[in-house]
């Protein structure tokens, strides 16, 4: 056993002006038994202190590239590895993951799997214990690491009691404790709600200011605007590498690579102005130059609280007769826990498209679970098509209200796609011909007709998500409740998923979608229900919602950038296309 203390990395601040942080030359990798290489001939270099954003569709090789940087590939995940990776000038060939750990810190998407300890301080200490650091030195490092991520004072807390954003920040602190000069973050915000995302991105900006070299993998281009450079991967190769303005203005290339182009750039592109919007203010200035007559909106005069109160009255009133689902004054708490729902009301009528939004813990999912009968309310009343929910089993209404769980992997088990879909109808004793007919129908609807005999576990995440929808849809529910249907999907898969949902809605299925994603709400929903602290505080049209500045300011929900921009012109545009059309009509 070598003297581990001697291996403790040099923690002196280095001159970041010229030094090379990462260099990758001719890197190719193919996973064992994979049909094609995950990475082929990838080369790029990062100077110390640079922040590089890596974008690309699912399967483009982003995570594979990240894992090559700290030797998880090929040390833990084997396959055919060729090429050179240098960290701070030194080739990594032959090094073990734990030898790279103090040089390259790695943060993963799944924050739950990154926390192993029973206290926040100990979580940070874990890596330090592994390098054999003395207790005194550990104590000196834990404080600053927690300070850096804004978790000072949380030392004794149980990590499982933290919010998602806090957990991810803790995972970052745990890596920072080793004082690596390079940090690789692999989709660190995918599983987070908007506040969590904002927290983590704010932290990333701070780390960058401190001179760390950062590699951030992400598929929402908007978030990567502040990078020094962007690398776009497609099918294992780099297809573009340059500063954000040169990459983020190539709309078609981004879309074809499964990346959501920044909305403001799409708008400038549609208006023929082109160029890269650095911020909403920048886009506004560019547009005013082109459309001098564009009006300015006065700032909202109604104080936030008053507006919220006013809409609360309206929220309670929004209870149309003849609703399919009716929730009246329902309260609920988990055994021994605080109140999750506190007098919640909701009514869903045939053919609606409703987005339920609100912070984590505001009661969205609990409300859905009460509606489908997985939970029973402590008080209040729920009716399904006029029948009292409490008299009905969960399965009894499964053919009227379909529920798609957030994670498709919580239900997929069958050996073939077809069997997976047929599972529900078989349980309900439908006759085989009918099952056959319905399976064909829904698999066509979700675009999996060519995968009937495929093993569901070999499908992509997007395909599995659509399979989960198909296996609920096959029971022909009148209402479909989707819990975060696009989490973990890349932009292309998100679009595909939402196209499917929109088509279902057009065919008459009422959609209730729980989501955190602003553009999904803006582009697809027609009605918005905002939950806060266990009750509904807003319930109205999507345009009314985004036009309600006070409400938006008070909720933590952020409008899509184009929508936020449209408010500066005194209108509400839900998409870049709508904004462009409005500008041409009113000011062209």
């Amino acid at each position: 056993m070598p003297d581990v203390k001697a291996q403790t990395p040099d923690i002196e601040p280095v001159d970041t002006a010229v030094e090379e942080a990462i260099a990758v030359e001719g890197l190719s990798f193919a996973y064992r038994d994979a049909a094609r290489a995950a990475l082929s001939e990838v080369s790029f270099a990062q100077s110390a202190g640079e922040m590089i954003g890596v974008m690309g569709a699912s399967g483009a090789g982003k995570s594979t590239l990240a894992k090559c940087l700290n030797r998880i590939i090929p040390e833990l995940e084997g396959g055919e590895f060729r090429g050179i990776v240098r960290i701070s000038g030194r080739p990594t060939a032959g090094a073990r993951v734990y030898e790279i750990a103090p040089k390259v810190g790695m943060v993963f998407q799944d924050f739950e799997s990154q926390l192993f300890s029973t206290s926040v301080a100990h979580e940070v200490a874990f890596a330090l214990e592994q390098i054999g650091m003395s207790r005194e030195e550990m104590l000196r490092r834990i404080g600053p690491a927690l300070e850096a991520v804004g978790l000072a004072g949380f030392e004794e807390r149980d990590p499982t009691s933290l919010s998602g954003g806090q957990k991810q920040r803790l995972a970052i602190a745990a890596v920072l404790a080793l004082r690596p000069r390079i940090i690789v973050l692999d989709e660190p915000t995918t599983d987070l709600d908007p506040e969590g995302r904002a927290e983590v991105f704010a932290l990333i900006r701070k780390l960058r200011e401190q001179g760390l070299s950062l590699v951030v993998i992400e598929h929402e281009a908007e978030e990567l605007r502040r990078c020094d450079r962007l690398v776009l991967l497609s099918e294992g190769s780099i297809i573009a590498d340059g500063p954000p303005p040169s990459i983020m203005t190539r709309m078609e290339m981004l879309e074809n690579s499964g990346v959501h182009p920044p909305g403001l750039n799409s708008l400038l592109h549609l208006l023929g102005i082109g160029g890269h919007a650095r911020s909403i203010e920048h886009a506004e200035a560019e547009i005013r130059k082109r459309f001098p007559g564009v009006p300015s909106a006065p700032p909202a005069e109604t104080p936030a609280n008053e507006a919220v109160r006013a809409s609360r009255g309206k929220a309670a009133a929004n209870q149309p007769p003849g609703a399919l689902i009716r929730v009246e004054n329902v309260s609920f708490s988990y055994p021994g826990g605080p109140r999750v729902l506190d007098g919640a009301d909701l009514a869903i009528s045939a053919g609606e498209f409703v987005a339920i939004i609100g912070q984590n813990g505001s009661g969205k999912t609990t409300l859905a679970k009460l509606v489908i009968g997985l939970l029973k309310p402590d008080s209040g009343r729920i009716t399904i098509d006029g029948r009292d929910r409490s008299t009905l089993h969960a399965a009894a209404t499964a053919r009227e209200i379909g529920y798609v769980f957030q994670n498709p992997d919580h239900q997929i088990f069958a050996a073939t796609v077809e069997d997976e879909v047929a599972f529900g109808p078989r349980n309900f004793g439908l006759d085989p011909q009918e099952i056959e007919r319905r399976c064909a129908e829904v698999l066509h609807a979700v675009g999996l007709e060519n995968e009937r005999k495929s093993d569901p576990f070999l499908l992509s995440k997007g395909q599995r998500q659509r399979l989960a929808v198909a296996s609920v849809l096959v029971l022909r529910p009148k209402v479909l409740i989707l819990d975060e249907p696009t989490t973990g999907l890349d932009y292309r898969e998100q679009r595909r998923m939402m196209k499917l949902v929109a088509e279902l809605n057009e065919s008459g299925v009422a959609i209730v979608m729980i989501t955190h994603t602003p553009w999904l709400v803006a582009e697809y929903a027609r009605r918005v229900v905002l939950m806060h602290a266990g009750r509904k505080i807003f319930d109205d049209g999507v345009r009314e919602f985004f036009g309600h500045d006070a409400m938006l300011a008070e909720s933590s929900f952020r409008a899509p950038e184009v929508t936020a921009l449209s408010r500066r012109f005194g209108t509400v545009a839900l998409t870049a296309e709508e904004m462009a059309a409005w500008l041409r009509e009113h000011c062209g």
Partner: protein
Amino acid sequence: MKTTLYIERDSFVHRLHPTAKVFGLFVVFWSIYWVDNPLALMPLALIVLAIALMMGAWENVYRFRWFFILIIVPTMLTWMLFYRVGKPLITLPPFYVSEASLMFGFGRGLKVGALVLASVLFLSGTKVEELAVGLSRLGLPYRLGFTITLAFRLVPLFMESALTVVDAQRLRGYDFDAGGPFERIRRYVPVVVPVFMGALRKANNMAMALEARGFGRTHRPTSFIEYRMHPRDAAAFAFLLALGAVSFWIYYSGLGAIPTG
């Protein structure tokens, strides 16, 4: 949801050195193993209950109440009704009840109950880090000890995902309760497969995260939390050694057996 059983308290047991805690669990298991007679088991069961009281661990005992009942009652009944030993009081085939079989049933119930209770108490008063330290001080390699503690961390996560999977399949009209006992086991396939696949994925993610934080770099990591032996630990060890010895003596002298004559 809370994913570990650990309860933050400042009791005598909580303050013990991890090695003493692991040793304590071992001694309780050892003592229970040697004794069958419920009368001889009583003091032991009372000691475990006293420890629960001292630790303020009732919330976990309550949390596991159904588990206790499900394990203790069938165990008792099976031995009481079917164990053919001693002079019968009632014989109504297939039932066979005698004074000795009643004793056995009661004893087995006590044994199982005390074992589960001791385990719950151990987890209520021992952080996973302490478990790792305790195991390594007792000679287990660090990697192995740490992996065991990870398993403890993962089990509640799997339980949680299993509950979600059961909900998901129930909503697809699946009836878990149809058929006889063997059919019922088979009917859990739609739960076991997703949970197992999820577990594999989680374990894989965890392995990556562990190595990325330097796990495996040394066989002898330093410890953030300092564990020092205190006089109370010496007292605990003395008590535990005595308890183990007395239990073995009870067995050796025949006092721990159930008279079958």
